């Protein structure tokens, strides 16, 4: 029942939201809906057994069922989704959008799609939700984005849609290979494929997921889209939606094609690690806060991508942990960037400076989030990155050592951003004040608390996904 609620609440409220007239009611309604979803998600943490899965008839002529279920990994990611949306809504509560009703409607639809992706245990259903999450995102970017939004959204669309089509081909192929012509995850785990077929289909799926993550060299849609999308949407894209790709690899790709994943592991890991260094080096030269964070995100996702293919239990734990941690951290960074952009009208380092004097609280929050971004110990991402680097190192000493260079580079570009934006003399005119609304401060404080809590005591979350990891590792071996 719980996964159904997680999907249905945002879906229904999202549809209703389109018909709301006033801006205030649309905002309040969206916030309320997301809080309700959060409540359900929190309840799910303490549930086990039947209440966590639902199996209903859906498209019988295709052999697809409405099969949704929450395991440990699903719980973590639905929790991330459920936590993020109220925080995003609350932190950007003061932002003005035209047609707020449809903005919030699309946002909630995206949430429904994301929830579905994380719950679905039927491949066709998964595909359905995958698209359900993406399509509203296209609208959000193209209607509420920056100047170059149309071109950028088009790129984003073509990129991700290409991936989706490849995946669709793959889905149909594996469907015909299942013994009982079904899309259920249990039957897909027992595919009888020849090595050649497996390799081929592996790539169809992997490219779709790699574009979404994104992994070098499929990443060029991302900085543009993050830059042009309204920041609330960027938060959803980078905080949650990129995790769809990572999640999908762990949930579907690795268990379905274990042999091919082992064969391709080295190749993909090399690309992922090269991508980490590549993105970090580019990040050093950025002049725009959003683009810098975007490239930093590519570097971090690269590490996850490399780790997933090591096939080690603690690495997998690290990836799942880091999905949550990275989501929280990056949303924190975006919130601060949004405040700056909304009030000062620029994100360029060359035009910013000395904000720590104008808004000390904002500076403190941003510094904490930045240090979380570079995985300082006792912040949540240290735990994830420690596990991940360790497993990459165990897999290959050289790759591990090269990947570790990104730790240094991350410090370089993140601190560069902190220094340019917050330290030094004030560069804008004195009279422009920067006041951080109380709701934004509160949300940042919550995020900081989450960052520190899981940095000091990560064990609850590790325990939560332990079972999933054991299963996946068993399936791979």
């Amino acid at each position, binding site marked *: 029942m719980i996964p159904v609620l997680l999907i249905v609440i945002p879906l229904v409220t999202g549809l209703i939201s389109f018909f709301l007239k006033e801006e205030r009611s649309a905002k309040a309604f969206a916030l309320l809906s997301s809080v309700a979803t959060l409540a359900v998600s929190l309840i799910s943490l303490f549930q086990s057994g039947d209440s966590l899965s639902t199996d209903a008839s859906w498209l019988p002529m295709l052999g697809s069922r409405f099969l949704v279920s929450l395991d440990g990994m699903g719980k973590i990611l639905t929790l991330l989704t459920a936590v993020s949306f109220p925080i995003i809504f609350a932190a950007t509560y003061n932002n003005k959008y035209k047609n707020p009703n449809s903005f919030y409607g699309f946002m909630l639809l995206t949430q429904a799609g994301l929830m579905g992706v994380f719950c679905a245990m039927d491949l066709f259903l998964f595909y359905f939700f995958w698209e359900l999450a993406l399509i509203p995102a296209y609208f959000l970017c193209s209607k509420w984005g920056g100047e170059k939004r149309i071109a950028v959204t088009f790129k984003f669309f073509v990129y991700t849609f290409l991936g989706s089509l490849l995946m669709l081909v793959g889905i149909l192929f594996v469907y015909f290979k299942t013994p009982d012509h079904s899309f259920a995850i249990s039957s897909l785990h027992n595919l009888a494929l020849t090595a050649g077929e497996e390799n081929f289909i592996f790539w169809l799926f992997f490219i779709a997921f790699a574009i979404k993550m994104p992994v070098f060299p499929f990443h060029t849609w991302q900085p543009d889209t993050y830059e042009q999308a309204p920041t609330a949407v960027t938060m959803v894209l980078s905080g949650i939606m990129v995790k769809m790709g990572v999640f999908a690899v762990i949930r579907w790709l690795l268990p379905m094609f274990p042999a091919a994943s082992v064969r391709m592991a080295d190749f993909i890991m090399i690309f992922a690690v090269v991508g980490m260094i590549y993105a970090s080096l580019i990040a050093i*030269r950025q002049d725009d806060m959003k683009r810098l964070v975007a490239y930093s995100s590519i570097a971090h996702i690269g590490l996850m991508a490399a780790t997933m293919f090591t096939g080690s239990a603690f690495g997998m734990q690290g990836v799942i942990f880091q999905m949550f941690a990275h989501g929280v951290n990056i949303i924190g960074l975006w919130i601060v960037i949004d405040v700056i952009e909304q009030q000062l009208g620029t994100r360029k380092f060359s035009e910013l400076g000395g904000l720590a004097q104008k808004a000390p609280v904002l500076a403190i929050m941003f510094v904490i989030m930045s240090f979380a971004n570079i995985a300082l110990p006792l912040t949540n991402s*240290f735990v994830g990155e420690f596990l991940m680097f360790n497993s990459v190192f165990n897999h290959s000493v050289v790759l591990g050592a090269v990947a570790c260079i990104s*730790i*240094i580079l991350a410090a370089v570009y993140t601190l560069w951003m902190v*220094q340019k934006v917050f330290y030094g*003399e004030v560069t804008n005119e004195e009279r422009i004040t920067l006041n951080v609304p109380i709701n934004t401060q509160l949300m940042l404080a919550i995020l900081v608390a989450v960052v520190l809590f899981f940095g000091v*005591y990560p064990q609850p979350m590790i325990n939560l996904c*332990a079972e999933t990891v054991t299963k996946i590792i068993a399936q791979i071996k």
Partner: protein
Amino acid sequence: MAKLAYLVPLFPLIGFLINGLGRKTLSKSLIGLLGCGVILASFVVSVGIFLQVKQDGFQPQIVHLFDFIKVQSFNIPFSFQVDQLSSLFLLIITGVGFLIHLYSTSYMHNEETQHYGRYFAYLNLFVFSMLLLVLGANYVIMFIGWEGVGLCSYLLIGYWFKNNNYNYAARKAFVMNRIGDVGFLLAVFWILAKLGTVSYGDVFAKASTFSTFDVTAITMLLFVGAMGKSAQIPLYTWLPDAMAGPTPVSALIHAATMVTAGIYMIVRSNVLYTMAPTTQAVVAIVGLATAFLAATIALKQNDIKKVLAYSTVSQLGYMFLGLGVGAYTGAVFHVMTHAFFKALLFLGAGSVIHAMGNEQDIRVMGGLKKYMPITHITFLLACLAISGIPPFSGFFSKDEILAAAYEHNKVLWLIGAITAGLTAFYMFRLYVMTFLGGFRGTHDQEHHLHESPSAMTIPLIVLAILSVIGGFVGIPEAFAHNAHALEHFLSPVIVKSADAAHGLDTSTEYMLMAISVALAVIAIIYAWTRFSKKPEIAEAEGAGKLLANRWYVDELYDKIIANPLIALGGFLKNVVEKSGIDGLVNGVGRGVNYAGRQIRLMQSGQVGNYILLMVLSMVLMIILVFYGNNLNPVLKYFSK
């Protein structure tokens, strides 16, 4: 008492939280009281722990707090280890740390309340991280503290964040430390891969299962970490720049905490290092090279803090020399005495800077003796201690390292002794130019000169006493049998390597002492006579210019590392990303567009053309259907 070890870092953490959150509401006196109080509380607990550990037959105790990361068989507990080594470091950190806190209450008193609170919060966090570092019972907890001190140094060096140069210095410190941290992290991964555990007890117990290659690689990587944290070649350049922070911070970084982390870590891992003679040789050479290089640079610096900074780098080099030749006790001993006299020197320098109204250039000082008697006396004592004049503390610890070096390799000893002479020379150059002769500053400054308030002088006096008598815990074998209390105390945590037993006979040892003391005395007399008459005010020329510009190492690093990396970043951003990958992606789009424009022309509107095309395609299809199987294997694949 050892069970209460968790209290030691807990107090500063509480101080950090209260001061950090309440920096706008608390009053200055409350902030100062809290900031110092928590460190004092930690110090009291540390003394209690030390007294317990000091008893004979004390076994190391593990205080397990909770499981930090536990994945299947892979377990990293959050636990503390109380033994001889950690309890000694606790004393140094909290003791010297407390004095520095006390000093800061007065030194920083002109700051706004809000920043005053921020300052003490950072300071407490620094002590917290350092305590975590030495208390941790495994390498991961040590790493947490290890990065923690890096963070705090970043925050404190960049404390005056309006000044962009300071921010650069802070960032440089953090990044250089990070380079070292990566080495440390890789070593941890290596240990984990081989043993599956990082707890000291388990690692050292199973160390014999390492191959020579493994143990050499691990110790080398750990040493890379130590290079970053303890400012050794090639990662030392951040430390002199770290002078950007407030002076008490320099005292804290350079004396009591951060830079000694590398020494602590290697002493902690002495089991591994003893197994890896190659690494030991590298450690000794790097240490000595750093000691010498930094000492030469210090000869020509004119900033009072810069001189002290390079002297710190140089003294740390000594400690690494000691570690490299297996004199672990000697290194720890020097850490301790160095903590006393270097903290004293920095605080004394702070006192001078305070009196001079933030002037740091010794060329405009001089004759401060009569204005600041306490600062003058204590500074002189510290200079004597660092120069290795008996019976001050530096003599004993430096002598122990040099004696061990002599045993190992006479060349090492020779360079070490020369460096000791250089040390004495630049320290007394500093002393003479600052305190003797006539005042060379402006009239305003002269008018303003005064002795510092008692909150600043009391720490100076306490540290001066410690600098004088601190050496007596390690009286060498030559003077009295079995009087080396420190060696006795540390013996449970340090493995005795076969050749480390004092093989020097008494007369040789006397000779070595005599030579190094003689060198130091000559250097002092030379410096005294040369600079008290004619202070060195002119810009350095020739070789001196090379030294004054720090051998151009910073410029070299910029040229060969920083600039190429930035250029590479620009190349990737502007060429590879824009024209390469994105060019390819957009090229596909443009290709489709272009093809569309070209193919459009076929739609001529002439019905005949269309029909012709239709007929041609039909003919083609007929050919393919009837003869295609023989023509094209691809079609065959599809038709199946």
